[in-house]
């Protein structure tokens, strides 16, 4: 029974072992954080090291493994699974397994890629507002006395007036002040600003911060004469730390996608600018970063955007988690714009407590036992409760994404062919074995008919009569979410001498090719697509000959070419390095009845163009426009009797089941929209913030309902004389839709 020690992560999807019979795998090395397995068979994996196992396997057959892990050093215990039948194990991660035993038997191929995934945390939080006892007692009195002060780098700056504004639908708080002394220089541009509210306790003022760490965002100065007297004013505005974070963006466009769902992100996932290319002022390309993230989900997108991107400690939400195919964080949109398409259908309330970002679904049911803060009429000067205009709809058209591409699906077949040349045992004999994996695209309407084929991978191995591998070429093609080939990676191994090892001839990777294909609209028919550009980068082993200088530098040439030319010696100072060899650019221009292809080759060893040519071929280079298939479903309210205009809901950015649930909720909300509340406060309540849960009542204690605060504003006038404070609050009704 063979055993395989599997301590390290490795290149994507090579076959590590083909095992026949009962198989035991002992993992004794690096802990990998994620694992997914397709298992058909009885499988045993033993880990001698506590580890993290994250992943799931759905298997053709009667077998499944499901395991979750966590990204820390705590031991995990998992259940065991006994699997019967033939087994193919695909581990995405250098696998470590703590506890849990899976027994494998049958022929087994193990493939693995490495990735790290954090397990979801099971938690909830108490958010407490803790008051100083003396301030609390002061506010309980009928007569209250307040003061405000602005601290610039810790030093007070006198004010005439101030406005603190936390509007709905944004994050962060803005403070606008009018200085008592019209001196713009009193506020340096890099100053850190705090704004405090003082509460008179009888013995003195207790100051509490309303804004912390604010930064200058704007300034204006007016020079005015009123009569013969100068009445100059300087108005300054600040934004707090949280508000500043909302504008953060990555250093380059970032595309994160789930390779288990799409081979490569669709070009539509990024702006057209990013698809073509961006350069900085020095001409250096600012490349779009494409990052595969197996198992990408909504919670992970929130973490990437707001924790890694914007600097929050964590993101907490009561929104449901769901799978995400791809997300784009762009230079112009920032992290927030990448997440908004996923958030908008839920219409959540977003607020921060300390450095933790909360995203709350106000339509989720209110938990039992929750004590909402009472907001009674004696704390309010004015109440406005508004029922938004109801739309007389009792149906909604929900457009959802379906898991089929323009009604298309594919099956794969493996073609194996062996061609022999020469006489076995004699010189010149070669056996060429070709393994080609072909995707057969079919339609759901006619599943037995193959509409088109694409090669997904190709492996060609040439051996001699002694079964020694002379060369091996492996090519893996990549496809985007629309089933179009977007490039390939190709590796060529050949038997070449190693000048650093006495000229020993052995099989080495001599070149590696990466191709990318860019599609665009057909210039003559906007309903069709065409290929715009193909870029092929070739890197490989380069022979460096210091004894043969050219223009004062060691002569370099691709090792395979040098070997063919007989220029490799083992007695000199020749060495090898792996580097860029050439880049081939192919541009296609559609001219109606012909296609012009311009090819340019840049040789990176000589840093000069290798060749360029333009060829014209008759014909057209058009591709039918392929789009993700969508389906439109009509949802209606029960008891629908009259035909009314229906609303529309676009759920194509979400999984279909999540989109349908949101569409139903949207329909209920249109028929019975939540109330909007606007109130003017009798005195400043510095504990009210976005996200505060309120039980609002009007005269005689009549309940208006439960609400969640969405924004507030405080105006402070006559700061240095007789301070007058006006506070207002906006909130929306909590509903259980």
């Amino acid at each position, binding site marked *: 029974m063979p055993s395989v020690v599997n301590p390290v992560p490795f290149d994507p999807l090579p076959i590590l072992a083909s095992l026949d019979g009962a198989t035991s795998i002992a993992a004794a090395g690096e802990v990998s954080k994620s694992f997914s397995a397709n298992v058909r068979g009885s499988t045993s994996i033993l880990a001698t090291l506590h580890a993290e196992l994250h992943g799931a396997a759905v298997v053709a057959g009667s077998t499944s493994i499901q395991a979750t892990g*966590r990204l820390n050093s*705590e*031991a*995990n*215990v998992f259940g065991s699974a006994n699997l019967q039948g033939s087994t193919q194990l695909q581990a995405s991660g250098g696998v470590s397994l703590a506890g849990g035993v899976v027994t494998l038997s049958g022929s087994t191929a193990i493939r693995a890629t490495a990735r790290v995934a954090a397990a979801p*945390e*099971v*938690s*909830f*939080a*108490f*958010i*407490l*507002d*803790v*008051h*100083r*006892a003396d*301030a*609390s007692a002061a506010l309980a009195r009928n007569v209250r006395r307040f003061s405000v002060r602005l601290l610039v780098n810790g030093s007070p700056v006198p004010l005439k007036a101030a406005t603190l504004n936390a509007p709905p639908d944004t994050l962060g708080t803005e403070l606008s002040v009018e200085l008592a002394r019209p001196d713009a220089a009193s506020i340096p541009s890099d100053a850190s600003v705090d704004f405090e509210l003082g509460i008179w306790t009888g013995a003195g003022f*207790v*100051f*509490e*911060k309303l804004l912390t760490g604010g930064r200058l965002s704007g300034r204006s100065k007016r020079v005015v004469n009123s009569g013969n007297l100068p009445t100059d004013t300087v108005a300054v505005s600040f934004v707090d730390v949280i508000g500043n974070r909302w504008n953060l963006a990555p250093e380059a466009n970032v595309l994160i996608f789930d390779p288990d769902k799409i081979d490569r992100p669709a070009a539509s996932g990024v702006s057209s600018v990013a698809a073509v290319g961006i350069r900085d002022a020095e001409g250096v390309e600012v490349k779009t970063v494409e990052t595969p993230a197996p198992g990408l989900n909504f919670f992970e997108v929130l973490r990437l955007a707001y924790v890694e991107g914007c600097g929050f400690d964590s993101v*907490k*939400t*009561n929104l449901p988690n769901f799978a995400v195919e791809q997300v784009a964080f762009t230079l112009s949109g920032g992290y927030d714009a990448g997440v908004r398409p996923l958030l908008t259908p839920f219409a959540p309330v977003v607020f921060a*407590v*300390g450095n*933790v970002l*909360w995203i*709350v679904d106000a339509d*989720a*049911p*209110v*938990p*039992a*036992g*929750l*004590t*909402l*803060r009472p907001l009674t009429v004696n704390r309010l000067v004015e109440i406005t409760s508004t029922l938004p205009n109801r739309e007389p709809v009792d149906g909604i058209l929900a457009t959802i994404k379906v898991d089929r591409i323009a009604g298309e699906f594919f099956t794969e077949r493996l073609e194996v062919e062996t061609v022999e040349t020469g006489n076995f045992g004699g010189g010149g004999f070669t056996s060429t074995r070709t393994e080609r994996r072909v995707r057969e695209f079919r339609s759901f309407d006619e599943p037995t008919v193959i509409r088109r084929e694409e090669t997904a991978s190709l492996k060609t191995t040439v051996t001699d009569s002694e079964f020694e591998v002379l060369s091996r070429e492996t090519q893996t093609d990549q496809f985007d979410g629309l089933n179009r080939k977007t490039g390939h990676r190709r590796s060529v191994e050949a038997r070449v001498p190693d000048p650093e090892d006495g000229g020993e001839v052995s099989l080495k990777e001599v070149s590696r090719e990466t191709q990318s294909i860019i599609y665009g609209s057909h210039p003559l028919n906007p309903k069709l697509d065409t290929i715009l550009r193909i870029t092929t980068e070739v890197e490989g082993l380069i022979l460096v000959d210091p004894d043969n200088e050219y223009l004062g530098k060691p002569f370099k040439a691709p090792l395979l070419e040098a070997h063919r030319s007989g220029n490799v010696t083992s007695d000199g100072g020749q060495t090898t390095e792996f580097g860029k060899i050439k880049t081939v650019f192919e541009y296609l221009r559609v001219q109606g009845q012909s296609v012009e292809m311009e090819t340019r080759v840049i040789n990176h060893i000589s840093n000069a163009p290798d060749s360029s040519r333009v060829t014209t071929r008759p014909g057209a280079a058009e591709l039918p426009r392929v789009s993700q298939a969508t389906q439109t479903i009509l949802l209606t309210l029960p008891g629908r009797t009259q035909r009314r205009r229906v609303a529309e809901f676009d759920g194509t950015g979400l999984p279909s089941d999540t989109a349908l649930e949101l569409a139903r909720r949207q329909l209920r909300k249109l028929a019975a929209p939540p109330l909007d509340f606007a109130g003017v406060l009798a005195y400043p309540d*510095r*504990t009210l*913030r976005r996200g*505060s*849960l309120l039980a609002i009542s009007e005269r005689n204690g009549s309940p208006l309902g439960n609400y969640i605060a969405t924004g507030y504003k405080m105006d402070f006038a006559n700061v240095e004389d007789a301070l007058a404070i006006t506070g207002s609050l906006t909130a929306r009704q909590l509903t259980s839709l």
Partner: protein
Amino acid sequence: MTDRFTDSTGVVALSFVPVELDEGETAPVFVARVPCHAGRTLEAFPDAGVTVEARPTGSGTPFVNIATDPFDLTPFDGENRAFDFRLTAGAVAALSPVQAVIRLAYA
């Protein structure tokens, strides 16, 4: 069972519970249901200034400070058990929002 904290009815998932206290004051007991598994503990990560205690509902046992002494859930393996949570605010220099995160951890 999809692990999540729920309210006392066991139906509605909990995300946050707002509490308003004066310094030194103890909040009314809040009941939440905890998904219990062998080898897991119930623990709290409070900001400074609040004490978080818990005990199984109806047990009559003393409250345990689950920030310093995580509660072993092994005896309740498989249950969605109700727990009483009690919070006590410490002294503060000024009004401050405090978060106490309650989570399932590993023993």
